[in-house]
C-alpha cells in the first residue's frame, strides 16, 4: 500500500491559509487557536481552542477547518476542542498582529490598551467602551484624527 499521507507541516501550511471568519485578514494560525496537529493512525487530529467561550464564530471555524482539509484530501479528520490552557492573545503571531493593524484593528498590547491609532499612528487615543463589535474587541477613538477604531483586547 502506498502511503500518501500529508505531513504535519503541510497541514499547518493549509491551516495558515484559512481566514478567521470574523477578521478575514488573519488566519486561524495567526490567531493562535490551532493548538496541535497530529496523526493518530489514519485520522488527522486537529486541536482547536476557542477565543471566547461564547464566540459564535467557533462553529464556523470548525466548518472552515473541515472544508479546507477535505479540499486537500484529508478524509479522516477529528477536531478536538481544548479549553485549557485558555487561549491568550500572547499566542497571536507577530505577523497576525501586523496584519490586524494594517486592517485598522489595533493589536493587543500587554499594557491593556492600544499603542497607537491604527489609522494615523497618533498615540493620543481614548477608550469608548470595553466591549466592541465582537467579544474580543473594545471600542477606542483617536483624539487626533477623531476616527473610532477597534482594539483587540488582551486576554
Amino acid at each position, binding site marked *: 500500500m502506498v502511503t500518501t499521507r500529508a505531513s504535519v507541516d503541510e497541514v499547518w501550511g493549509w491551516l495558515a491559509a484559512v481566514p478567521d471568519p470574523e477578521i478575514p485578514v488573519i488566519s486561524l494560525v495567526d490567531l493562535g487557536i490551532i493548538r496541535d496537529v497530529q496523526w493518530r493512525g489514519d485520522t488527522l487530529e486537529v486541536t482547536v481552542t476557542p477565543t471566547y*467561550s461564547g464566540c459564535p464564530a467557533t462553529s464556523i471555524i470548525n466548518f472552515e477547518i473541515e472544508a479546507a482539509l477535505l479540499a486537500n484530501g484529508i478524509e479522516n479528520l477529528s477536531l478536538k476542542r481544548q479549553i485549557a*490552557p485558555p487561549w491568550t492573545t500572547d499566542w497571536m503571531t507577530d505577523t497576525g498582529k501586523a496584519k490586524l493593524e494594517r486592517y485598522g484593528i489595533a493589536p493587543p498590547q500587554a499594557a491593556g490598551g492600544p499603542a497607537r491609532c491604527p489609522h494615523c499612528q497618533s498615540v493620543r487615543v481614548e477608550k469608548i*467602551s470595553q466591549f466592541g463589535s465582537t467579544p474580543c474587541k473594545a471600542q477606542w477613538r483617536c483624539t487626533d484624527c477623531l476616527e473610532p477604531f477597534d482594539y483587540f483586547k488582551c486576554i
Partner: protein
Amino acid sequence: MSVAGLIRMGDNTLVLGQRVSEWCGHAPALEEDIALANTALDLIGQTQLWLGLAAEREGAGRTADTLAYHRDAWDFRNLLLVEQPNRDFGVTMMRQFLFDAWHLEALTALSAHDDAEIAAIAQKSVKEVTYHRERSSDTVIALGDGTDESRARMQGALDRLWPYVGEMFSADDDDLTDVSALKPAVFTYLETILAEATLTRPDSDFAHMGGKTGARHTEHLGHMLATMQVLPRSYPDATW
C-alpha cells in the same frame, strides 16, 4: 458527585445571560447595548461548558440544551440574585456588579480545583469575567457618583438587591468550592467600589434563600423561562 455543583454554576450563567440578553436592542446607548450583548454571550458560552460537563458527568443522555430548555423553574439551581428582573439600567448594572464581584472570586477559587475539567472551565471564564467586573464597577461608580437622579437610582438599586447578596455565601456540600470563604474578599471589593461610587451599603444582613437549593425561587424565574424555553418546548425537535 459534582453534577449538582456544576448545574449551580451553569444555571447562574444561563439565567443571568438570558436576563442580560433581554436588553438587546433596548439599552440606553449603542455602546451599552453592545456591551450587554457581549456580556450575555460570554455567560451563555460559559453555560455551555458548565452544563455540558454536568450532563456528561450525569450520564443520563441529557445535554446542555436539555438541561437549559427542558427543566422547570423548581429544577433550577441559580442564585435568586440573577433571576431578578432587569427593571431600569441602574438595577441591571447593580445586579451585574454584585454578581461579578462574587463570580470572579468563585472562579478564581475554582481555577485551582482538583478536578482538571472544572479548573479548565474556571480558568477560561476568569478571563472573560475580569472584563465584566471591570465594566460593571466602572458603571456603578459613574452612575453612583453622578447626578442626583442617577445616584438615587443606584442607591435604590443597591437597597433593592442587597437582600439577595447573602445567598451567594450560603454554603453546602453541593457547591464546587466553599463559597462562605469568598465573603471577605468579595466584601472588601464591594466596599471599595461602593465607597468610590458614594453609595451606602445597607446595614441589614437579611438574606432571601432558596435559589441555589431550588426550595423557593422568586416568581420572576418562571416568567423568564417561559420566554426562554417556548420554542424548544413547542417544537422539541426543531433545529436551526
